[in-house]
Structure formats: structure tokens, C-alpha cells
């Protein structure tokens, strides 16, 4: 169980461009799977390449366990880091069989030990008996699992996964994701998964680090990042968000166009500013359609989008400039143009 610690990492490609990494800090506890989540260009691929040692950092340090990989005056070459990588699209060596791909990193061992270890790894990823095949004879998902087996075979202290499920079609993705996660758990390796897919990050990782402009904007468990985002931008990036102007009333509630809403109290955000005004964040699934007669909060349905497992209903709320989205499971009872009531469930987060 090895901890990954990144401190003040900075990298820029020349003065005209803004720095890609701007003093990034991140700590991943040993054995955890952390997802680095961010939009394209936020620096997540650069971060991964610096951790792996393919790029030199301008400043800052990368420490795995007790070993300093990158630091002032220190730059271990990639081959001496014991950091496994699983690149996009697997990148298996096309000229080597599956078994030789998996055994590629097993240097300094005798033949039988290498073979046994390779077989162990194939078993770990559920592909026992595929050793003699060539990479092009495997499906995309199988290639991805072999790539993981190859990375795990030399017992690395840390495994980096660079958007490894991107190339897979969506039907396969969930299954491969679950397999990879299970294999990582069994191996006990610390892992960093780079992705721009919020669903992937939330569903796969123990820890989600949202990266923005070369820094970690928030690092927490998937649940916390989704429920208690540090700012409205993160809220919108990790999921659909409903943002409402609000006035804090004290006693842990706030007044909004949707009525008085209880506020979450277990966050670092400024819920203490009792009489402040700000923005509250709700998720569309926290809003509920009610009968329009209830007299409380109401509005007019403007759009209904049906997704199968649920539906998104857009409502122009009376007294609110922008319409709000709400997610409803089961049959949709309303149509555009109809009046409806809205009720809020659960707590909201207030951002000043």
C-alpha cells in the first residue's frame, strides 16, 4: 500500500501559453483508486505524463511511498519508477503474443517464474488461456484488460490509467470498468484514472479530484463531490445542476423561489454567514412534480425529454427568470404547456 503525494506541480509549454499545471497538489492514499476528472485541456494528461516520468516538471514534486520520483533536481527516468501505465486504446505491442505482452515488464526473473506470473495476471483479469493469441485477435475490451494485466505484472507501486475506456463502445464500457476495478482491488495497487467522463469517475473511483486550470479544484469521495461540490462550476461539471438565487434565513435554511430549503451543514462552505445571499445548488432529481392546485410553488412545463430510465422536465417557475430542470422516474404525467407544482426534497448547498 503506497501513497502517492503530489505537491506544487507546475508545468508550462513556453511563455506565451498559460501554464498547463499551476501548482497542483494531490494525495492519493495507498490502495485507493483516484479519478482525475476535468475538461479537455485542464492539464490531466500532462499530470499523468509527469507522474509517469515522460515529461519533466518545471517545479513541484511527485512522491510514491517514500521514493521521490520528481522533485528539485530529481527526475527518475520512467523505467526506474515502477509505475505501470494503461494507455488509451490499450496500446498492446502488436508484434508480441498476449503472454509476452503481459510478461514484458518481468525482467530479471527466470522463465518459469515469468510464465507463472503472466498466467496469474491473465487469471486476475479473467482471460486465462488467451496467452497464445495475438493482440489483433482480441476484442477492444479484452485488449484493455490485457493492458491492465501487463501494467500490474511487475507489481508496480502505482498504476496510471489514461482514459482507458474511451475507445470502447458504451455497451461494453460498464463491464470492462467493473472488471478493471475488481482487478485493481485484488492487486492492492494505488491507481490514478484520468478521465473527462464524470459518470466514469463517480462510478469507478474511491476518490475524485476535479482539475481545473491546472489545479485540483476539489478532491473528495464521489458522493461528496456530487452532493457537496465546492463551487457552482464543479456542480455543473460533475452532473446536471439547478442553481437558484437564495437568501440564508438562519437555522440552516434558505429562502428561494422554490420555497424554504434546508441547507447542508456538514460542508466547509459558508453556511455560517446566516443572513447572506448566494446561490443554492440542487440536483434535478431533488425536485418533484406535484399537483398544480397545492398553491405553493408552481410553473409551466416547457419541455419534456424522455430517456427511458427517467425523464427530464423543464419548468418555467413563476417568479424565476430561468427555467429549471427536474428529473422524474417512471411515467411522465405532464405535457408542455401544462401547469404544475414543484416540491424540493433533501438538502441544498449554499454558495455565497
Amino acid at each position, binding site marked *: 500500500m503506497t501513497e502517492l503525494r503530489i505537491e506544487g506541480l507546475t508545468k508550462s509549454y513556453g511563455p506565451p501559453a498559460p501554464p498547463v499545471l499551476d501548482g497542483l497538489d494531490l494525495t492519493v492514499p495507498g490502495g485507493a483508486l483516484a479519478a482525475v476528472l476535468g475538461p479537455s485541456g485542464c492539464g490531466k494528461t500532462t499530470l499523468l505524463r509527469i507522474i509517469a*516520468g515522460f515529461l519533466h516538471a518545471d517545479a513541484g514534486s511527485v512522491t510514491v511511498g517514500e521514493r521521490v520520483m520528481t522533485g528539485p533536481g530529481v527526475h527518475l527516468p520512467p523505467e526506474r519508477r515502477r509505475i505501470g*501505465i494503461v494507455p488509451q486504446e490499450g496500446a498492446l505491442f502488436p508484434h508480441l503474443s498476449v503472454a509476452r505482452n503481459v510478461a514484458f515488464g518481468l525482467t530479471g526473473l527466470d522463465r518459469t517464474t515469468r510464465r507463472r506470473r503472466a498466467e496469474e495476471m491473465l487469471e486476475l483479469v479473467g482471460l486465462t488461456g488467451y496467452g497464445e493469441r495475438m493482440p489483433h485477435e482480441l476484442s477492444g475490451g479484452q485488449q484493455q484488460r490485457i493492458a491492465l494485466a*501487463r501494467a500490474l505484472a511487475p507489481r508496480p507501486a502505482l498504476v496510471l490509467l489514461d482514459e482507458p475506456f474511451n475507445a470502447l463502445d458504451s455497451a461494453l464500457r460498464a463491464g470492462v470498468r467493473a472488471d478493471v476495478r475488481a482487478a485493481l482491488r485484488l492487486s492492492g495497487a494505488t491507481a490514478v484514472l484520468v478521465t473527462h467522463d464524470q459518470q466514469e469517475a463517480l462510478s469507478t473511483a474511491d476518490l475524485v479530484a476535479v482539475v481545473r486550470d491546472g489545479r485540483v479544484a476539489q478532491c473528495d469521495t464521489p458522493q461528496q463531490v456530487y452532493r457537496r461540490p465546492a463551487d457552482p462550476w464543479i456542480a455543473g461539471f460533475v452532473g446536471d445542476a439547478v442553481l437558484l438565487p437564495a437568501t440564508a434565513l438562519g437555522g440552516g435554511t434558505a429562502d428561494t423561489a422554490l420555497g424554504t430549503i434546508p441547507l447542508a451543514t456538514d460542508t466547509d462552505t459558508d453556511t455560517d454567514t446566516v443572513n447572506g445571499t448566494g446561490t443554492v445548488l440542487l440536483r434535478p432529481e431533488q425536485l418533484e412534480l406535484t399537483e398544480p392546485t397545492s398553491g405553493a410553488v408552481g410553473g409551466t412545463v416547457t419541455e419534456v425529454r424522455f430517456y427511458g430510465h427517467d425523464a427530464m422536465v423543464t419548468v418555467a417557475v413563476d417568479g424565476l427568470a430561468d427555467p429549471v*430542470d427536474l428529473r422524474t422516474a417512471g411515467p411522465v404525467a405532464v405535457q408542455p404547456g401544462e401547469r404544475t407544482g414543484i416540491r424540493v426534497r433533501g438538502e441544498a448547498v449554499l454558495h455565497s
Partner: protein
Amino acid sequence: MKTGTSVGADPRSRPVSRLRPAGRVPWVLGLPAVVAAVFAVLPLVYLCVRALERGPGYAWDIVTTERAALLLGRSVGLAAVVVAACLVLGVSLAWLTTRTALPWARGWAVLVTLPLAVPSYVAAFAWLSAAPQLAGFTGSALSLTLVSFPYVHLPVAAALRRTDPAQEETARSLGLGPVRTFFRVTLPQLRPAAAGGAVLVALYVFSDFGAVSLMRYDTFTRGIYTSYRASFDRTPAAALSVVLVALTVALVAAEARTRGRARYVRTGTGTARPADPAPLGKWLVASLSWCGAVTAAAVAFPLTTLGYWLAVGNSATWDPARLTETATATLGVAAAGAALTTALALPIGVVAARHRGRVAHLLEQAAYAGHALPGITVALSLVFFAVRYAHPLYQELPLLVGAYAVLFLPVAVAATRAAVLQAPPGLEDVARSLGRGPWRVLREVTVPLAAPGVAAGAALTFVVCMKELPATLLLRPTGMDTLATRLWTETGTASYAAAAPYAAALILLAAIPSYLLGRHRT
């Protein structure tokens, strides 16, 4: 999905560059690459040193004589005529084979690229032996046009396939007839491709030695050769060579510029739908005759002439022992040339494909120097160098093989670079992360993956070495002949029946790797 108060993606987000930033070139690659690059530009540098040895005034007097002006005028005139003829042939054939309902269009498209495989001196041999009165400007222009028009045909045909037919249809709908549409819409789009091809043809004509020397037409290359043979003073040959190189370098620079523009014209077109073939109507017979005539003159005629001279040959002209010896020698030097060229090209090709930045760019550019150096100038430079600094090498095999490497390094570097580019760089990263150092990554991952492409480049280099004439003439060891030099010598003394077996052997031997290359590509 996000409306109203929902928050969208960060507007500041920008597309991430998947290109790799300039990395440090590891010394296991960098050192051999630098050695190869220095080797590639050495002849050019030494040529300049030698030309200016007796002071710039002396060199200036040589290049401003009446004779130099005459040579220059002839080279430029010949190039102008050949380029014009190639443009007519290349553009017309490209349009007929890609855009019209010409019968057997695909077959014609293949046939009209075959002349690329005919060395200029084989074409000259064919025309000269059939009609000796063609010697001089006419014969030179004819043979050079018929071997080099595919340089225009190929890019123009590619551009025609790429341009969106919707533009032509729009022009027609706006009231332009088919002819005016071709000149006002189609042709302007072909200009970059045609210009690039024309520059290649001009480069070919300026560098050509075989055809003009057999046709006894004094252009720059033949003038340099005569001047070198005739005088003990080597400065005139060197000075004239520098002028020729200046011309060819200017052409290469021009070619690079047209290529840059061609790319610009292409942007944004996406995948165009193939054009509906234009019906030929009453022009059908004329079009077929045109294709037939060009193919006959450029492909069928040299082969038939060769067959004729083989058939009329007798025991006096037919010397199997000597033919075998010459063929063996040719294969030997070509193999050595291909081996050295490929070995030198490998590090540069890998650096060019995997690293960016000024050093990598400079190394690649140096390797392409041979592209702008006519064979005769490289040969002269190496002769001068060997006579003064490495006399034991003079008229020995290593010098000849070295000249091949300088001349054909561009071919091998381009092949290596393309082969390495096809292997995803991610594989090398993975190998590094699994504990391999740069040298072992090169040996175990990069080279095995690039091997088929590198081998194809080596085969191509082998073929061009086998066909090389001027450098071989000047640098071959005393008493050694290649098929090309024998063919040249025998044709020069009008012994056509004696020359024919060497031409046939050359074509056959060159065809084998070309055939294998074709199979490799498909």
C-alpha cells in the same frame, strides 16, 4: 440537456494537443543521427570549399564565361520545354482517368505511372537506337518528358479525386459550360498539385545526366562531366557544380512552398463524394487514342525496341559471362548502398518521427540534402575529397557506396519516418514504464514495429542504387561496371545490340523488388 440555470462545460476549455512536446533526444539515437546528418551535408560543404579554393574571383570568372551561360541556358530551356510537355500530358491524363467515363480508366491510370520505373538513359537508348537523328535537344526533351510526366500526373490525379465535385456542379448551375467550368473552377484548384509536380520534373531535368549525355546535348550536368574529364584543374567543375546545386536547391525550396500551399487549399473539404464521370461523347475515340499514344511511346516503345535489339543480337554482342559478372557487381554495390543508407537513415528517421524541436528538424533537413544534389555533384565532391584527404579510398567501393548513401538518404529517411509514425508512441511509453531504458525500447519495440516499412525503404533504395548512373561512372573502382554504366558505354558507341542485354537485365532486376514492394503495400 442543460438549459436555464444549469451550468454548462467550462467555456475556457481548449482542445488538448495530442502531439508530443519536444523531448530530449536520447544519445543512443542522437549521436548516430548527428553522424549521419553530417555525412549527408559533407559533400555540399566540401563542394563549396573546393569551388572557392582559388578565391571567389576565380570561381566567379568560371561561372560567368560564355560557355557557362550557354550551359545554363540549355538546362533552363530543356527544363522549360519538358515541364510544359509534362503539364499537358500529366493534367490531361489525370483528368481523363479520374473524371471521365473513359473505358478501362483504372487500367490506364496504372499504365501511365509505369514510366516512373524507366531510367532516363533507357528511354534515351530506345529512342536513339531507333532514330539516331533525334540526338540533341529533341531526343533529350522527348526521353525526359516520357519518363517524368507521372510526377505531374500522380499529384494532379490525387487532387482531382480529392476536390469536391459539388463546386463544379455549382459552377454549371450558375451558367458555366463544361469547358469554362474546367478552366475557371477545376484548373485553379489543381494549380498547387500541378506546380508541385512541375517543380519535381524541373529538378529531374536539371539533375539528369543519363539522357542528355547519350543524346549528346550539353547541359549543365554533361558540361560538368566534360569539364572534369578534360582538365586537371578541378575548380571549374566544382564551381559549375555549385551553380547547379544552387539551381536545384532553389527548386526544392520552391517545391516545399507549393506543398505548403497545396495543404492550405485542401483544408476543410472533408471526404468528398466521388464525381459523376463526365461522358466523353464524340471525344471518346480521341481520348482513347491520346492515352494509347502516350502509353505506347512511354512504355511499349522502350520495351519493344529492347526486344528488337535483343533479338538481332548475336554471339559477338552477347557475352553471358560478362553480363553475369556485371549483374553480380550491380547487385553487390546496390545491396551495400541500400544497407549503409538504411543504417544511416534509421536514427534520423526515428528522431524525425518521435521528437520535435530545432535539433530534430535540423537533422531531418540535413538528411534531405541529397534530394537537392544532382548525382554528378555528389560524385565530384567525393572524388575531390578522396584525392586530397583519403587517397586510398579513391576509386574504391566505399566511396561509391558513400555517394549512394548521400544521394538516397532522403528515400530511406522518409520510409523510416513514415514506418515509425505508424507505430503509436504510447507503446514506447508503456515499454519505458515497464522498466526498459531508451536503447532497449528502440531495439525491442520501435525497430521491430517499424521493420516492414524500413525494409520497404531499403528495397526502394536498393532499386534506385542499381539504376544510378553519374556517381557510379565517376566513383566505380577501375575495371568494375554496373548494368547502368555498361548500358551507357555501349549506347555511347552506338553498339545498341550489345547494350540491350544490360538494359533488359537492369529492368528485370529492378522489377523484382518493385513487385515485392507493390505486394507489401497492398
